[in-house]
């Protein structure tokens, strides 16, 4: 028995020992190893040695991958006892392109503490480059952004490595290494997607002629698909339509475009984010699945839905309008999908007149017609419709095509009338009906008015005039009605009560209001009398006014007034009236500017100044409201002296017309008056004033007075000189010539045919008659003037330097004026002359002739005769 056991034990040991070779090596190893490569993947297959059949425990295969005799990967493959004898396979993707370097694979088995011998296989050795250029690997490979990639440059024999780079990437994280002198690698973090096509990896080498030789490869760096938000729906219950959001550009272009599959079928146009498949849709909650994939990844989108809750209806077809009247039409349409007629449908009708639009909703089973009411008569409309399911509403259909129609005409709407008191007249005015109020072409308006006790008076106003002036008895109340007429008839009348002469407007003082954003925000106290609301009217405070108004419902006590006619810098008066059952009642008045504007310079037309001691009062005319584009809150007077230092005086009284600058110095000042408004100081008007001392003023006044007197005297002298003849005639009128009958006189008369007049104003006739000698000389005039100063020196003849031998003892000087006789027809002029005591004296014209007057030649008849006062020496009368 013991022997038997020993034998069995020996047998068993011998069986186990059969897995070992003679040298003690484990004999259960791999066999029939085959190595293949695909892309960058190494695939290894092998079988177990038949000796492994006896192994009862799991068998482990150890795999080692070596590149350039350097271990780059180690892995163990476990084979369960039941898998022994099967063909085993293993694959591995190398980080390095297989073209870069040969990969050596070593494989051995291990069982317990026993290991077989290494069996090895090697990839096709690379690194041999038969071309003349460097070769870069991998080529045209797809990489994901963010991954790390290794590129190698395999140089031809005889070339030296120069550079290896990847375009468009930062060289900061590049790792260079060389597998051999001919194979160089670059490991880089691919953090940028390829831009236009693929990214270039370029290797530069230097050949034996020291010339740089380039070559490269392309790498597609991009993203896996990241589409999302799949939503499926049905439109006709015969197909499923899915839409989703397409993800970012994968940057892989045609190299690896994203492909889509829906329910296992290809979506050719999935890149648009929509896919449709024909299939009958039933009531069921289902998963609708879409996959999107490229070389870098795959994404699966799932939408779980009952498509009967996801009905996206088709737009209504054949929309028609029928039964059109002035305010109602009927709309009919058809459904393309018959199944819609069984659904409860709600539809939106969009009705538009080009400017405004309204949407009305209608619900019904299989809804295919609606009535649209409340339309404007004589109006053009455009209508369209869209629908959706009422239950489990998903989304509205597209709008149907638009249908246009015109409603029928009608009588005009009642007019909006108002009144305005102007120049003792009552202007009834109304707003011209808008197109949506006239319901046809307005022909005219009919105004009727009556006192309470009198019969109605009517008048017609042709369109488009929209006001009518009435001269009414201000002591009576009137009811005035206006109606508008078009081809369809007359509007209902609009009536306004004109009250007895109202004085309330005088009692209501306007308060100020500030405009904003081109209008006025108006508010007022509610009035219990305003049973039918309020009326706000407005007009410019000054100038022509086309009144405008606005009706406000009783519930509102504030309103924004805006008018396209509002202008900045114009003051408006706004009146708030209560609308009562009788006449309107004025409640409040407000005035203000839509926007105040700066007043232009030169606001004060004429600045006047008045000195008062060392003060100066600057005054101006009141500023008219038309010239105020802003409320004037006061005035400021700026005073600049010659040093340009400034002082100012101001007033807050907008009615002020003067300001006084005090305690000024003798100097020149510039005064500027400005109006103070809420938009700033403006309307600058300046005046320059020079202040003098009192002494200066006195001297100036005296000087001016003296000069004035002197000038006046000169003027008088000149005037007297020029008009001396006249003055003389006035002062000394001509004296008739005395009639002398003496012989000497007769003789004299014979010699001179001209009468002689002697002017003696201050002598009596008796004295005149006593003049013994008076002669007029008719000879040629002498040139010299008589010297008036020597008239007291009797001179009969000879030179003045001769002594007077016999002075005249009884001589009397008598002024004599030679007469101005313009005797142009006569030869001689009347010339006062001296008595010629000797004939010789006639030729002594050059001698001293103190009594001689200047004589003019007779021929010069045009010259006026000068009139010179002459003194004549009278001889002593004989005592007899």
């Amino acid at each position, binding site marked *: 028995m013991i022997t038997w056991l020993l034998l069995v034990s020996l047998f068993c040991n011998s069986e186990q020992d059969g897995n070992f070779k003679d040298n003690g090596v484990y004999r259960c190893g791999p066999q029939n190893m085959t190595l293949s490569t695909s892309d960058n993947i190494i695939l290894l297959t092998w079988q177990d040695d038949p000796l492994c059949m006896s192994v009862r425990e799991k068998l482990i295969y150890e795999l080692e991958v070596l590149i350039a005799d350097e271990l780059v990967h180690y892995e163990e493959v476990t084979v369960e006892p039941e898998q022994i004898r099967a063909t085993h396979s293993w694959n591995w993707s190398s980080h390095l392109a297989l073209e870069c370097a040969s990969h050596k694979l070593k494989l051995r088995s291990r069982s317990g503490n026993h290991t077989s011998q290494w069996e090895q296989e090697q990839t096709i050795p690379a690194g041999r480059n038969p071309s003349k250029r460097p070769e870069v690997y991998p080529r045209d490979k797809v990489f994901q952004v963010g991954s790390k990639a290794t590129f190698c440059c395999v140089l031809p024999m005889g070339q030296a490595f120069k550079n290896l780079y990847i375009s468009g990437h930062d060289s900061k994280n590049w790792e260079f290494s060389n597998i051999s002198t001919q194979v160089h690698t670059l490991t880089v973090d691919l953090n940028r997607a390829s831009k*236009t096509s693929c990214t270039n990896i370029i290797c530069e080498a230097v050949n034996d002629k020291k010339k740089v030789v*380039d070559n490269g490869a392309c790498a597609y760096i991009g993203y896996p698909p990241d589409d999302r938000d799949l939503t499926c729906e049905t439109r006709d219950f015969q197909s499923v339509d899915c839409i989703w959001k397409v993800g970012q550009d994968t940057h892989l272009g045609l190299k690896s475009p994203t492909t889509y599959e829906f329910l296992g079928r290809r979506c050719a146009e999935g890149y648009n984010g929509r896919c449709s498949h024909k299939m009958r849709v039933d009531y069921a909650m289902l998963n609708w699945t879409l996959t999107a994939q490229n070389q870098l990844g795959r994404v699966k989108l799932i939408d779980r839905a009952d498509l009967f809750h996801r009905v996206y209806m088709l737009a209504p077809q054949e929309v028609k309008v029928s039964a059109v009247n002035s305010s109602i039409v009927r709309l009919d349409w058809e459904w393309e999908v018959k199944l819609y007629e069984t659904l409860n449908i709600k539809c939106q009708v969009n009705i538009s007149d080009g400017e405004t639009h309204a949407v009305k909703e209608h619900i019904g089973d299989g809804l295919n017609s609606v009535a649209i009411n409340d339309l404007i008569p004589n109006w053009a409309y455009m209508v369209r419709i869209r629908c959706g399911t009422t239950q489990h509403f998903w989304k509205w259909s597209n709008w149907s095509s638009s249908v246009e129609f015109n409603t029928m005409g009608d009588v005009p709407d009642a007019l909006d009338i108002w009144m305005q008191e102007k120049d003792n007249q009552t202007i009834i005015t109304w707003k011209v009906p808008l197109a949506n109020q006239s319901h046809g072409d307005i022909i005219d308006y009919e105004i009727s008015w009556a006192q309470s006790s009198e019969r109605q008076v009517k008048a017609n106003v042709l369109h488009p005039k929209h006001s009518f002036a009435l001269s009414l008895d201000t002591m009576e109340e009137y009811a005035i009605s206006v109606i508008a007429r078009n081809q369809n008839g007359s509007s209902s009348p609009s009536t306004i009560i004109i009250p007895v002469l109202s004085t309330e407007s005088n009692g209501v003082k306007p308060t100020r209001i500030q405009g904003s954003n081109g209008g006025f925000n108006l508010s007022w106290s509610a009035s219990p009398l305003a049973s039918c609301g309020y009326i706000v009217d407005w007009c410019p405070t000054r100038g022509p006014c086309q009144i405008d108004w606005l009706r406000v419902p009783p519930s509102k006590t504030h309103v924004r007034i805006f008018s396209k006619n509002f202008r900045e810098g114009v003051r408006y008066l706004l009146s708030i009236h209560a609308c009562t059952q009788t006449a309107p009642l004025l409640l409040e008045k407000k005035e203000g500017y839509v926007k105040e504007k700066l007043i232009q310079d030169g606001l004060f037309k004429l600045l006047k100044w008045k000195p008062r001691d060392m003060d100066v009062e600057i005054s101006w005319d009141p500023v008219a409201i038309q010239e105020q584009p802003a409320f004037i809150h006061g005035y400021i007077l700026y005073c600049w002296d010659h040093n340009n230092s400034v002082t100012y005086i101001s007033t807050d009284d907008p009615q002020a017309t003067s300001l006084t600058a005090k305690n000024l110095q003798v100097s020149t000042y510039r005064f500027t008056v400005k109006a103070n408004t809420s938009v700033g100081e403006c309307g600058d008007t300046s005046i320059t004033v020079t202040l003098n001392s009192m002494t200066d003023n006195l001297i100036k006044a005296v000087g001016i007075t003296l000069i004035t007197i002197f000038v006046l005297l000169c003027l008088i002298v000149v005037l007297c000189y020029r008009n001396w003849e006249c003055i003389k005639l006035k002062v000394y009128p001509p004296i008739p010539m005395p009639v002398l009958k003496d012989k000497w006189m007769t003789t004299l008369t014979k010699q001179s045919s001209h009468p002689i007049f002697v002017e003696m104003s201050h002598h009596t006739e008796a004295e005149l008659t006593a003049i013994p000698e008076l002669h007029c000389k008719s000879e040629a005039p002498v040139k010299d003037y008589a010297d008036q100063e020597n008239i007291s020196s009797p001179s009969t003849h000879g030179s003045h330097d001769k002594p007077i031998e016999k002075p005249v003892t009884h001589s009397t000087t008598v002024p004599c004026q030679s007469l101005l006789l313009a005797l142009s027809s006569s030869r001689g002029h009347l010339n006062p002359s001296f008595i010629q005591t000797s004939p010789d004296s006639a030729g002594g014209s050059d001698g001293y002739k103190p009594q001689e007057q200047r004589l003019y030649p007779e021929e010069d008849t045009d010259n006026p005769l000068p009139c010179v006062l002459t003194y004549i020496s009278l001889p002593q009368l004989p005592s007899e």
Partner: protein
Amino acid sequence: MADRRIGLTGPPEQGRTTAARAVAIAELLHLESSNLLELYRKRESFIANVISGDSRLVSVPPPSSQLETRDKLWCLQTALLHCRGLLERAIAKEDEELGSQMGEYETLRKMVKERLLSLVNTIGELIKAVDSPAMVTPTLNDSLEPDNLTVFEMKLWVFRVFTEVDYWAKTAVTVLQALPKERVRISRLRSTRSSRR
């Protein structure tokens, strides 16, 4: 010998106008092809010598000054026809490999192609204006068609095509600008010949 010299058959003004137009088109083509080349070089981050050492794609000898006007024009037209064929293939190849888009590069590429065709036609008119026998349109060497190229190799080939177009556009400008002088010389010779007769 003088009888073998070529002259202009059409109206002198017409020939002059066509020559001027050809010069203008060639100058435009040269400008645009230079821009295209530069744009492509920047877009692909190519350095200038990436294709250095490669043989020329168009194997037509450049028109030398020794040639007659007619021969010069013929050489030029042949080379430009080659360029046009290459450019069309390059565009098709790019679109096939990388997809067709419509950006600045694609627009410029199309413009150069059309300008090149316009220049070829204008030079054809000029050749007709020279009293020469009908020329046989050169057939393109199909062996130039790139095949089984990697994308990078295709890019290099496209770069070579653009370089070739630029080179021949520049050559065209030079040759065509020299034409009026030739014509003056021809006219003078012709008048001399007439006087001898």
